[in-house]
């Protein structure tokens, strides 16, 4: 389906990542947001608050992140596409409702413009230290999808993708920006609405009598109904059967939890997005994401100038993790180098996936700035030996 032109600000803009993210949401058909102010993410909802009354929709500033992260889900069940936007401390508060969205299969987007932590940390400075929290932050077994833009243009493009994936898989999608990507201003091209693909809601066409809110047709993603459609359906965060009724028996728990995982894990190849460069014949592959991928690009260039054979793998989707891809590459190279703005998060996934076939070198950084490319270069040189 093509985007509704009302929300699409077609043209070439000079725009920061936060604003581009907002425009991506509007282009994707998002017409409802609930937020709570937090640096460095607030500009996203500030723009949404200014834009949405002109395209038809609503924004509400809630009393805290707990409220914002569940209000948006009420909006989804009333028929809207919806998102919320936050940063580290707010992201921590939203964890329970990421679990609720996963459990109730509420399609929605959580934007986290990452800053330095732990706790209040570095409100105005970047980090990439919420990557594991994005995957594991809520209790219980579940899967989410996480995307990592590295430019304002991608903040626009991938926000649309985030909404589309949320609808396709009925899953909360984590949009993992960082302070630098959020605040840097670059050229952003917004295409005409008829060139933007948006995924419609998987709304049921079944009769009231035939509709099972959590019944599936083999693809593991149930069809949805909205409040007011006449289906009189029930939604609960308790373990539930196909009717949506609470059922706390072992077989129902097993079936439900495995489906919540498998609907994502069985589609890893379709969901995964990466950017690859000169992996064939490389001795070392630098794996990076978000703003760090742009710093790494410089280090890769310097290494190639020295005659080293260095490939690049940029993770556009961080979760589900492209385990198979890493495993395949590991067989052909000496080592992975993984720079990230944390003390070692995604590097563990790389190391695990490599399964000892290639060495893995972290280039850690506590956050608050970006790497010096020389620091990444040093590790590439070491890894090439």
């Amino acid at each position, binding site marked *: 389906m093509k985007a509704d032109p009302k929300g699409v600000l077609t043209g070439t803009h000079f725009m920061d990542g936060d604003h581009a993210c907002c425009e991506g949401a509007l282009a994707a058909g998002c017409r409802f947001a609930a937020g709570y102010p937090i640096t460095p993410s607030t500009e996203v909802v500030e723009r949404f608050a200014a834009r949405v009354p002109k395209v038809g929709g609503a924004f509400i500033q809630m009393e805290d992140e707990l409220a914002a992260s*569940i209000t948006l889900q*009420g909006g989804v069940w009333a*028929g809207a596409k919806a998102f919320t936007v936050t940063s580290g401390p707010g992201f921590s508060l939203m964890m329970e409702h990421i679990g609720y969205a996963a459990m109730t299969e509420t399609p929605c987007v959580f934007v986290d413009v990452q800053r330095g932590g732990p706790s209040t940390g570095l409100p105005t400075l970047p980090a990439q230290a919420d990557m594991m929290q994005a995957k594991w932050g809520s209790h219980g077994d579940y899967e989410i999808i996480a995307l990592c833009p590295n430019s304002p243009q991608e903040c626009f493009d991938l926000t649309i993708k985030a909404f589309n994936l949320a609808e396709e898989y009925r899953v909360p999608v984590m949009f993992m920006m960082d302070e630098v990507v959020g605040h840097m201003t670059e050229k952003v091209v917004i295409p005409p609405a008829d060139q933007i693909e948006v995924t419609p809601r998987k709304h049921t*066409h079944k009769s009231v009598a035939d509709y099972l809110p959590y019944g599936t047709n083999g693809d593991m993603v149930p069809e949805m109904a909205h409040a*007011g459609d006449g289906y009189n359906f029930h939604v609960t965060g308790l373990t539930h059967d196909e009717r949506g*009724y609470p059922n706390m028996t072992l077989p129902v728990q097993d079936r439900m939890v495995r489906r919540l995982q498998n609907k994502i894990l069985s589609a890893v190849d379709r969901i995964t997005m990466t950017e690859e460069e000169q992996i064939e014949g490389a001795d070392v592959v630098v794996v990076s994401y978000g703003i760090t991928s742009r710093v790494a690009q410089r280090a890769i260039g310097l290494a190639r100038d020295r005659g080293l054979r260095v490939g690049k793998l940029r993770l556009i989707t961080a979760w589900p993790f492209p385990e198979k891809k890493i495993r395949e590459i590991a067989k052909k190279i000496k080592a992975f180098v993984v720079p990230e703005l944390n003390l070692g998060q995604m590097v563990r996934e790389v190391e695990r996936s490599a399964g000892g076939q290639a060495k893995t070198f972290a280039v850690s950084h506590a956050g608050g700035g970006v790497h010096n490319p020389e620091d990444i270069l040093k590790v590439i040189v070491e890894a090439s030996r």
Partner: protein
Amino acid sequence: MTDSLNNDLLNTDSCSGDSCGDSCLDDVVNPVEQFLRSDRVPHIWCPGCGIGTTVNSFARALIESKIELGSLALVSGIGCTGRVAGYVKLDSFHTTHGRAIPFATGLKLANPKLNVVVYSGDGDLSAIGGNHLIHAARRNIDLKVICVNNLIYAMTGGQTAPTTPDHSTTSTNPYGVFEPSFNLPHLVEAAGAVYVARWTTYHVKQLSRSIAEAFSKKGFSFIEVISPCPTLYQRRNKMGDGLDAMKFYKEKSKVKHGCPTSEVGMTMTGEIIVGKFVDRERPDYQTMMRAQYQESLGDSFVDQSSVQVQEEPVCS
């Protein structure tokens, strides 16, 4: 008193059963059954619990108010009362602990045509959800909040709630509660609710009428229902069973419509002031929002009719 109460709760038509025998009962239709998910019976509530009684009054209010059921959504939080969402045959949402009000806010804002009821307990709404309660009242979101107040955290085994009266004994205050309790009508009135009433589960008709009346109001309505928990509150406090609770409510309740909410705080054994305390007009959140956008944006304001997502075309 109990006979007439039972008649009111259980039945239905005037058929007495005596004159026409069992066969006659086959034709008796319980008027509230249409609102319930009969396939989920038996429910989880204890004998003597008042929550089912409140659901009966709620269902009768739906009949009385002639509200369109298709546009009615019910949202609960967590706890014994939180289970109401699972038993009503409506679009119903059993959300997270304390967050029924913000979830309901999202429903209402994204689809203003919905009538949204929040049905939850005192701990859920006033402790973990207390911040949302006061802010929804302040904003005057058009929600009907039914707060079943059993004076305790019941689902988890009888711990102290913000509403537990001074001197009662609970599992977390085994030597007696010493912290002051919340006067919920006073709290929500101060925060901005347009309609505030309190009844007990003895006042089934009055409760029903209040709920129906709240449906006719636009804005944040709050109805507190004092309800027995024989298993965890009364037993521990030697206050008898469900029937004793009814006697207690009958004896101690005093109807005082319009009573200043500052005077309706509860004690363990004292008077229970019931009635309609607040009924006033204030523009609700969405009315104010629309007016503000219209004033500031003029013709560039687009009303949120387009807020619903576009759906896939219906297959033939």
